[in-house]
């Protein structure tokens, strides 16, 4: 088992090297010179040249590449051109709120999607199944930004149940300790501050959860249906187990395996969904951070973010594989 994990982690290295190289080249080869972008619309030719020199963009590509990888290995991600800040620090500040939002979205997606899917499988051709399946179709087809805007309009502006945008109310100061707003809110010891953070989290989390929720419910339903038809369940019923024990004790655990795969993949998707959700709701997070960086051609930030996200996704896929082994005793890693 340990050997397997170490091997899996070792495989991440060539993947990362590939990601690093592709990101490096892509940012330099796509049309649109960063120096022109950064110097602004009003810059003179001399200023653009000066900018190119200051950023080291006038050096040959291989030299830039070696320099870039050397800094990366030392954990030096450089400075953001847009904000002038230390990228490592800015990534920490922006990653935490996105992870927080993704977890909240995942919790909502599982809490609603899983029972809905299982129920739909158990109550075939009833209203429950139709509602679940139509609901999941809607959830998967609606653009995230549209759902976000509708929630803002109806539950925020019209009903006034939720704030319209932001991570916390303007004027509330939360000392940044962990950069997870809910945790930092709790650490203030002030219930109202924590509530304010949660209050701001609800609509974005629902928005971000919709696609995952739809996929989870469909997946849970189909894999549950498959398991319900299998012979060992007939055996379980035949030996007189109650329905509840058959479903929860025997069927559900096996039905969950494909769902775990989907959830693992969805964690990566949630990070990309965060770009739109964070922008619509004006939340702090890595999605909006990288979007701003792309718009400003802040290539050091784009590079660093893509690499960190790649590491993150690679780690998730390892964890997903390990969870398989926990759920299914037939799976053994050597």
């Amino acid at each position, binding site marked *: 088992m340990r050997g397997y994990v170490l091997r899996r982690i070792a495989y991440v290295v060539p993947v990362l090297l590939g990601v690093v190289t592709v990101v490096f080249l892509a940012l330099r080869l796509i*049309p*649109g*010179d960063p120096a*022109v*972008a*950064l110097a*602004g*619309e*009003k*810059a*003179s*030719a001399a*200023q653009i040249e000066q*900018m190119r020199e*200051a*950023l080291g963009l006038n050096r040959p590509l291989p030299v830039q590449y070696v320099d870039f990888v050397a800094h990366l290995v030392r954990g030096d991600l450089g*400075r*953001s*051109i*847009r*904000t*002038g*800040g230390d990228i490592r620090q*800015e990534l920490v*500040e*922006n990653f935490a709120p996105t992870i927080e939002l993704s977890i909240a979205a995942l919790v909502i997606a599982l809490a609603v999607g899983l029972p809905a899917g299982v129920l739909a499988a158990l109550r075939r051709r009833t209203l429950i199944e139709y509602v679940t399946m139509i609901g999941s179709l809607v959830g998967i087809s609606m653009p995230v930004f549209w759902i976000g*805007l509708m929630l*803002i*309009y109806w539950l*925020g*502006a019209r009903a*006034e149940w939720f*704030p*319209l*945008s*932001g*991570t916390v*109310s*303007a*004027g*509330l*100061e939360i000392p*940044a300790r962990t950069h997870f707003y809910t945790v930092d809110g709790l650490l203030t010891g002030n*219930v*109202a*501050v*924590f*509530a*304010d953070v*949660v*209050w701001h989290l609800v609509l974005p989390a629902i928005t971000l959860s919709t696609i995952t929720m739809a996929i989870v419910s469909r997946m849970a339903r189909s894999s549950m249906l498959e398991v319900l038809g299998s012979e060992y369940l007939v055996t379980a019923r035949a030996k007189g187990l109650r329905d509840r024990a058959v479903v929860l004790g025997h069927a559900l655990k096996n039905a969950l395996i494909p769902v775990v795969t989907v959830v693992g993949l969805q964690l990566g998707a949630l990070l990309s969904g965060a770009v739109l959700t964070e*922008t*619509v709701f*004006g939340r*702090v997070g890595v999605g*909006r*951070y990288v979007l*701003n960086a792309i718009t*400003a*051609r802040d290539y050091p930030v784009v590079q660093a973010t893509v690499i960190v996200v790649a590491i993150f996704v690679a780690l998730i896929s390892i964890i997903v594989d390990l969870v398989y082994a926990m759920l299914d005793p037939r799976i053994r890693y050597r």
Partner: protein
Amino acid sequence: MKSSNMTRRDLLRAAGAATIIAACAPAAQPGATSTGKAAAATGTLTFLWGGDTDKLDPPAMTTQEGFIATTALYEGLVRYKPNSTDIEPALAERWDISSDGLAYTFHLRSGVKFHDGSALTGEAVAFTFDRSINKDNALFKEAQSAGGFPFIDDYIGNVVAKVEAVGPLDVRFTLRRKFSPLLSNLAIPPAYVISMDALKKFGSKINENPVGTGPFKFVEWKKDDHITVENFEGYWGGQAKLQRIIFQPVPEASVRILKIQRGEGDIAWPFDPKDAPSVKGKAETDVLEQAGLNVNMAEFNLKKPQFQNKALRQALNYAINKQELADKLYSGAGVAAVGALPPTSWGFDSALKGYPYDPEKAKALLKTAGYTGDTIILDSYTIPRGYNPQGAKLAEAIQQYFQAVGVKSEIKTTEWTEYRKIRRQGQLNIAFGGWQADTGDPENFLGVFFYSKNQGGVNTSFYGTPEVDKLLEQANEETDVAKRKSLFNQAEAKIVDDAPWLFIGHMKQQVAIRKRVKGFVLQPTYIYYFNSVSVS
């Protein structure tokens, strides 16, 4: 199974707690943490904009948001008068210009303190400018890896050889050549004066720790979330009325307007002009607007033989219905152009007629020009710009106007950064573009676009005539404002007649505001002063 019951009960308990928490959440509203220290200053103003500023270091920032936020924190030697591009004293009480026009000596106000308690001196002013324009300065070098100081050279660095203290409260700018726009240029945010002590202490990190002399002092900047500034009791010019200002990015334009309607924000800028009716003239909200200090145009690439035909250029100018564009394409947020200068510039010539919409005249001129039906290429960028929020849709509209007078055209769009690059190389044809002025000086429109030495820089129509060059040079050397205006008017009249551009329009500056805000005045430069703003 027992444990699962427990869990459910716990869940219910937690849900109950959540309801209670949600119920008290609305209590956590803006201003909840106001310290209320200064008795005279009250209330919090929330200013909403689309994106956060890139930086808060005056010479390093490149966004309008930064220009606005730093204006609460910092001041320059001079500033603009309310809703005007005229100059008035700020940190400098008065100034002398040497008879050869090459030395400007500023006499500073005494008793001015920075937020860190240090005093404003001639030395401190010289220190700020040496950092931003002297390429051998260690602090200048330090700033380069994060983008450097992109604007200051255009406005100050290229003409000012050195800045030195010549007395405890006196500072002298020595110029390389006569340059009368200097005074106006010193009012823009990149020329704000920074505390010398703070610069020595923080270096480039002054970006995250701004220390100026402005009416508000810095509290915190949570990037992409908010900037908070607080009343500075030691302000020399009479304490500001607000206790706090919070600048908050709200990326969705429609959400910004919803927030204004609901009272989650006091001022929103910018916003979609289509949303204006939902806040304009309402019980609680309103819209402030005026022509902006910008221009929206398309330029003829005069390097190409096809466009070296003046009658053709004039014909195409007559073919466009500028008023219709302002009303329809820009939903009433546009103003038709007669030339390059907007009506809010002090150099605007109200006698200038420009090219009123006249398709018949256009057709006649096309005949004179010998237009034979060849296809003209319209080069357009894709993204919305401040002076053209409709992006490439403008090109489609122009194409239709051309078609109506029998001119065939084809639209070619290019990604923005690449577009600017090839445009400067002279590869485009009729190329859309525009300008948002940084200073109130007409030089900031006419000089940058039509002075022959700026060809390939901002002058990408590659226009240049000895006559206009001479007028612009004279206008830059003359210090008398009335004489300068006359010189600019003569230059613009000649430029408009030569028609190197399709003169299209100017976008209005629009701000959505809650009526509880008093004393907020629009500025042509978008550099808003918060000194006398209050909330009721």
